[in-house]
């Protein structure tokens, strides 16, 4: 990574603990939680909830369709993520 998102003076201890758990559970450091927890005061709670919400499938879309939409946008952006 181009900046060291692991080292943050803003990340509270419980988020550091959560990240270690996530790394163990996922098998790799998960980028989105790593980024948000670098400076959690930067993000408004409802905003995070909003951007995560659609991935569960809502508005008549299934979870599978939401995942298809996400893959499609990643591809349009030529992004591997």
């Amino acid at each position, binding site marked *: *990574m*181009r*900046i*060291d*998102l692991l080292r943050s003076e803003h990340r509270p201890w419980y988020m550091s603990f959560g990240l270690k758990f*996530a790394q163990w*559970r*996922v*098998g*790799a*450091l*998960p*980028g*989105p*939680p*790593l*980024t948000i927890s*670098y*400076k959690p*005061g*930067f*993000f*408004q*709670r*409802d*905003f*995070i*909830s*909003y*951007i*995560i*919400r*659609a*991935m*569960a499938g*809502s*508005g*008549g*879309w299934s979870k599978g*369709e*939401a*995942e*298809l*939409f*996400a*893959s*499609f*946008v*990643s*591809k*349009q*952006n*030529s*992004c*591997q*993520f």
Partner: protein
Amino acid sequence: MLEDWTRADIPRRTRAALKLLEYMTVHPRDIDSALIDDLKEVGLDNLAIQEAANVGFHYNLITRVADAFDFPVPQGVQQERLARMLNFIGKLLRGSSAEEIWIRGDGGVIRPPEVEKGREQLLEVEGATDPLLRRSVEAYVISQWGWDRQESLDLPAELKIFLKKLSLHAYRILDEDIEALQLAGYSDDMVYEITIVGAVGAALVGLEAVYQYLYG
């Protein structure tokens, strides 16, 4: 199917949503009432359009951050586990649902209330960068898509180079782009804030256009 979605054997609703997402991602300036009418004609109501646009906003944001910071890309089962974890975090964070579907932010721009609140926090909260700089960063990335937003500050050249890539083709961001910012005196915290604000601004372009034609 992602290679040629126009001919893929998928339901018309799904194909219509992919069309919307392509417009949001690649040519948001072409979003207009005719496109929204086309979507409605195949059975998408406002809620279905909003929620597809939400996924578009989410991934237009996250892909830019991933490319800028060069995230490790989860592979195979890691992707499934990450998706489950994000879903769980989303449930934990689920706040009260906004009463309004949309609100007008500064400049009369229509956005979902959660997005407007989140955007205001990103722009105004105390940080390593000045709020005026953050507003100028947002204006600059949005202007790359052809919208006229007034920048308060004339941004330095190295920052413009990085932000142009972040806005238009983030996959082209290189180590050298971040190093150029660091050499110019930007701390990691400053690069972080500029990147997040810039990525949100660029992702907002498509979302705002959709909301403009749904509710404007």
